[in-house]
């Protein structure tokens, strides 16, 4: 692919989603966009590129962004963040807000829903211990298509098997053939909404905990910094931010600092050290 053509995609993806692609990934463009070309009955990549140079159809642009972003996720991904949510976050919120409070959680790039549903299941599993607490889970993603999947709550055998403990699978899912559907009472605990992390976040109010995992890795430093700074304004004083295993705030923003001794967990930079 010619550099000028590549730049059409590179600029569009960067502007619409923050995704950074480098020229060594041009083979990825062609293979991932093949289904889009087919869906839209466009003869080839050259014709697609031409279309994008004009004023392209909004849906076409969305399809291209969707095709280029990674939706990889799983239930209980990395396990630790969910243990820490239970053992650190909830006690910290209870200390700050009292026993009968509402705990608001944001899963900020929720993909097909495994992350927010894992949180909802964690709440169900601890329901006796957390009886007075009301939980609100907001789950957002840029991709409408992936959000539709998340809302449907239907997963393949392969997807549930990657991470969902068998006792919980039996408790919280129903089975039809090879499809496992999350039960309504879990579904109802999560509110899904289409949202681009590049946009202003003022509409959301304040969260006690934000999961922003495995999405910042696709962005450049300035974009990461801007998103994290906006998020810090949406996080309560006592709040906690979880990033993915390969992500950090260090060298990117001064809004957050790592929570001492806890990998992947961040708090406001002016938060007092945790009481021992």
């Amino acid at each position, binding site marked *: 692919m010619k550099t000028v053509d590549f730049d059409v995609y590179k600029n569009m993806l960067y502007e619409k989603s923050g995704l950074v692609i480098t020229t060594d990934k041009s083979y990825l463009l062609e293979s991932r966009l093949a289904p889009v070309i087919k869906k839209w009955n466009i003869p080839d990549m050259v014709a697609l590129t031409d279309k994008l140079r004009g004023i392209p159809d909004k849906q076409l642009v969305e399809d291209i962004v969707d095709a280029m972003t990674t939706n990889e996720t799983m239930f*209980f991904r990395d*396990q630790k963040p969910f243990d820490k949510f239970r053992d650190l976050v909830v006690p910290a919120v209870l200390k700050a807000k009292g026993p009968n409070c509402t705990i608001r959680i944001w899963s900020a790039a929720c993909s097909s829903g495994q992350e927010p549903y894992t949180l909802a299941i964690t709440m169900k599993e601890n329901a006796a211990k957390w009886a007075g607490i009301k939980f609100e889970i907001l789950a957002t993603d840029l991709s409408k298509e992936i959000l539709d999947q998340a809302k449907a709550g239907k997963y393949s*055998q392969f997807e549930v*098997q*990657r*991470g969902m*403990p*068998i*006792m919980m*699978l*039996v408790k919280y899912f*129903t*089975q039809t053939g*090879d499809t496992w559907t999350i039960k309504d009472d879990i579904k109802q605990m999560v509110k899904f909404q289409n949202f681009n992390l590049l946009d202003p976040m003022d509409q959301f109010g304040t969260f006690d905990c934000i999961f922003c995992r495995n999405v910042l890795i696709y962005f450049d430093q300035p974009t990461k910094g801007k998103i994290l700074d906006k998020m810090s304004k949406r996080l309560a004083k006592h709040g906690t931010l979880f990033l993915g295993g390969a992500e950090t705030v260090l060298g990117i923003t001064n809004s957050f600092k790592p929570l001492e001794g806890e990998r992947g967990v961040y708090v406001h930079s002016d938060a007092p050290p945790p009481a021992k």
Partner: protein
Amino acid sequence: MKSCLVVDDSRVVRKVARRIIEDLGFSCEEAEDGVFAVAACQKAMPDAILLDWNMPNMSGIEFLEKLRTMPGGEQPKVVFCTTENDMSFIQRAIMAGANEYIMKPFDGEIVATKFSQIGLI
């Protein structure tokens, strides 16, 4: 070193499973049906058992029910690994004392996650 007994009537599956489990740092024994598995457990209780369902002579579920009545038989963590993927089978396995359940096809990542979730690694 922790030990794992792989019980499956397919030699190919046993070989694949052994590779995965040895990579997780276990020593590995094999049994080709429930009868051989009982004998192996009488000799030495393993820390983990990866267990097929459908096998000649003694099935996986029969073996598990027997195992849990043997001296020391409550000890091993038992993970089913079978093509039986119906909820009713899974429930029956849990009732009989299975700790986890893998629906074939499986891969190393699935085994590793399941083993870690039940505290084997």
